[in-house]
């Protein structure tokens, strides 16, 4: 009796689904993702099965562009802080929209440290004397968070693909936000 094939298939996708749940729970626990990501998943359905992949891909492209822009701007002789602020604001928005919580927080910190006009509200001479330096530090932080969440999201979406390929259904996460 041929029970082997089907059984293994169910077992296989079950394992994958468990992996998926554990993996995504960890991401939420570590604050890399927040409830907004679950909102995105809720918008995925049979008529739009690739919605999450599409939005996340857009986020990667957009973020890369912004990070490149920021590096370039900070490299210039006379740093255009307004441009920096606009770009960071954009990145903050898009990361917030997909639920990349730590990227978003890094952007918020970036803006408060590098808002040159507000510098006098901080008692720190270091900031006043070296706004460029602070901005560079902040940019590093944002880049780091971005690369981290990018890797994790890619892994998560790969898992989803594997689940579907194995005939399983991607588990729906509960919105705990």
């Amino acid at each position: 009796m041929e029970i082997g094939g089907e059984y293994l298939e169910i077992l296989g996708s079950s394992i994958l689904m468990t992996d998926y749940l554990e993996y995504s729970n960890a991401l939420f626990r570590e604050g890399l993702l927040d409830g907004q990501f679950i909102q995105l998943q809720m918008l995925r359905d049979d008529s739009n099965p690739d919605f999450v992949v599409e939005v996340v891909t857009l986020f990667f492209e957009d973020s890369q562009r912004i990070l490149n822009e920021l590096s370039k701007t900070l490299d210039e002789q006379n740093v255009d802080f307004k441009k920096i602020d606009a770009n960071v604001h954009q990145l903050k928005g898009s990361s917030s929209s997909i639920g990349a919580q730590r990227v978003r927080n890094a952007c918020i910190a970036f803006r408060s440290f590098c808002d040159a006009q507000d510098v006098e509200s901080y008692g720190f001479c270091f900031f006043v004397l070296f706004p460029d330096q602070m901005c560079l530090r902040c940019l590093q932080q944002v880049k780091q968070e971005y690369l981290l969440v990018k890797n994790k999201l890619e892994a998560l979406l790969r898992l989803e693909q594997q689940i579907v390929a194995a005939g399983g259904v991607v588990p729906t996460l509960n919105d705990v936000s």
Partner: protein
Amino acid sequence: MGMAAADGQFHVLAVDDSLIDRKLIERLLKTSSFQVTTVDSGSKALEFLGWHGSERNMFNETSISPKIHQEVEVNLVITDYCMPGMTGYDLLKKIKESAFLRDIPVVIMSSENVPSRITRCLEEGAEEFFLKPMKLSDVNKLRPHMMRTKFKNENEKPEKEEIITIGEADSDMEKIQRAQSLQQHNNNNDNDDDNNNNTKRKSMDEGLSPDRTRPRYSDLTVMSN
């Protein structure tokens, strides 16, 4: 030809300069069974709504307005606050200052929770203010605003009207206008395409007609676009 919401679907115009947010809001709205158009700026939004810069122009010429603007009815505008060029607040103001756009409900979204900003928008006539990112539960709050306006429209319009009267219900001006539009309709043989278009409202202000090809009082013949 008029894309009236006769099929029961509400049409939302979403304005946001962020591609990701446009994608998101589009999906949110479509999931809630709304028809959606997205644009990336306030000026494009005004273009889509058929606003042409100066409403004075309507008298001067038979301007050639693109047909699409006359055929599409917008039941709600949802706009981001922070946009380069024209902000969501500027857009809101322009809509509320426009005689024929002012009754379209406008909703503002913002990523920043700034109380003075929220107050300003609400005072300017925004129906609601949402913090981004928007959720499905937020989108559910939109329908009542659209229904309220549509319901008000439907109660006021004669059967096959060519001119729609919107505004405070049952004022004397309203009654006069309604009577006039009914009379005009009866005298017209042609059935005009532009009826059912909520974005082209008959203004309560003296002499202002949203439709550039149809002078309001004197000429009872319908001119084709």
